[in-house]
């Protein structure tokens, strides 16, 4: 994992050790309200943050990691530290997903950063299966508000846990990908990944 202390040399290494120890102590004392790490992925560097009851945030680099952290600090708790073992399961699942070995995430997700209709949309998105897509209109209909197509788009754009909750599978009615918080390129990449790894995942690669 990348720990980006703004220093170098032995002193920085020592501070890194002290930092790790602090995170472990904070966790043991129930003071680690939010923990995060920044990891490399095929869609760029991802910030992954979790509270005690699940993953709170996945942020693309283009969304601004510092902004995402400031938002978490303001809306969840300013007791935010980098590192720790809490994120190990979700980072492992993300690795598996990006290598095509995983089709669904089963780590707990905490949706407290999204509310109301947007939250209903985000909660419904996992119903769109791996490798499949749904149109904004279809999702609107599925959430009981068939005219709220634009609101579905907004909910997807503001999904606090992209990739884990697959808003990239929601596309335009004409089949083009449409916009994405991580950029259109990232959305295409994720859709391609799911299309091309699908036969491998079912163990029935023919074609």
């Amino acid at each position, binding site marked *: 994992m990348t720990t980006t*202390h703004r220093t170098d040399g032995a002193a920085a290494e020592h501070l890194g050790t*002290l930092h790790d120890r602090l995170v472990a102590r904070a966790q043991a004392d129930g003071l680690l309200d939010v923990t995060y790490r920044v990891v490399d992925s095929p869609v760029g560097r991802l910030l992954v943050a979790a509270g005690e009851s699940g993953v709170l945030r996945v942020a693309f680099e283009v969304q601004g990691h510092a902004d995402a952290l400031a938002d978490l600090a303001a809306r969840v708790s*300013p007791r935010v530290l980098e590192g720790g073992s809490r994120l190990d399961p979700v980072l492992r699942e993300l690795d598996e997903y990006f290598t095509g070995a995983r089709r669904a995430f089963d780590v707990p997700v905490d949706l407290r950063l999204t509310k109301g209709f947007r939250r209903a949309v985000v909660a419904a998105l996992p119903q769109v299966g791996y490798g499949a897509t749904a149109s904004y209109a279809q999702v609107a209909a599925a959430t009981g508000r068939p005219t709220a197509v634009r609101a579905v788009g907004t909910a997807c754009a503001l999904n606090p846990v992209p990739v884990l909750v697959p808003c990239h599978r929601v596309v335009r009615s004409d089949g083009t990908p449409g916009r994405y918080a991580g950029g259109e390129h990232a959305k295409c990449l994720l859709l391609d990944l799911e299309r091309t790894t699908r036969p491998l995942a079912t163990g029935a690669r023919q074609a």
Partner: protein
Amino acid sequence: MTGPFEDVVREHGGTVLRVCRAVLGAPDADDAWSETFLSALRAWPTLPADVNVEAWLVTVARRKVVDELRRRGRHALPVDDPGTVHGAPLVGAAPGPGERDLDLWRAVGALPDKQRRAVVLHHLGGLPYPEVAALLGGTHAAARRAGADGVAALRLTYGRTHHEEGTS
């Protein structure tokens, strides 16, 4: 405070370590550092937004350092024992992030043990001289003299370093 605590650790971790190392040797300085940031993390959400974070942290660190010195006192370990001098080498080995005022830290580290502790506890930690004396042993007046001698020595060495390097 509403900002992420991680920023505080990154920004001030080195300073706090230097404060701890200026008085305590390893591994006690490391323990004092951990206790400082753990306390600070606990208090962080309720800390008023207008507090000078660095000064606040140094105050917390000073308290932890003092706790450690008192603990040693209870275990009857003389803090001034020449056999437990941790001064110059430890402080010298603790150049840290930011490299701010590194010459000052070297100069502080080079002070005789008692002067160094008096300077750090009083001038950096904000501890009144009676309390400094209680920790270092000896009289209030002796602690004050050690502090004054230390500052006088710093004026000489630190001033000279700056002059030689042409940074002031």
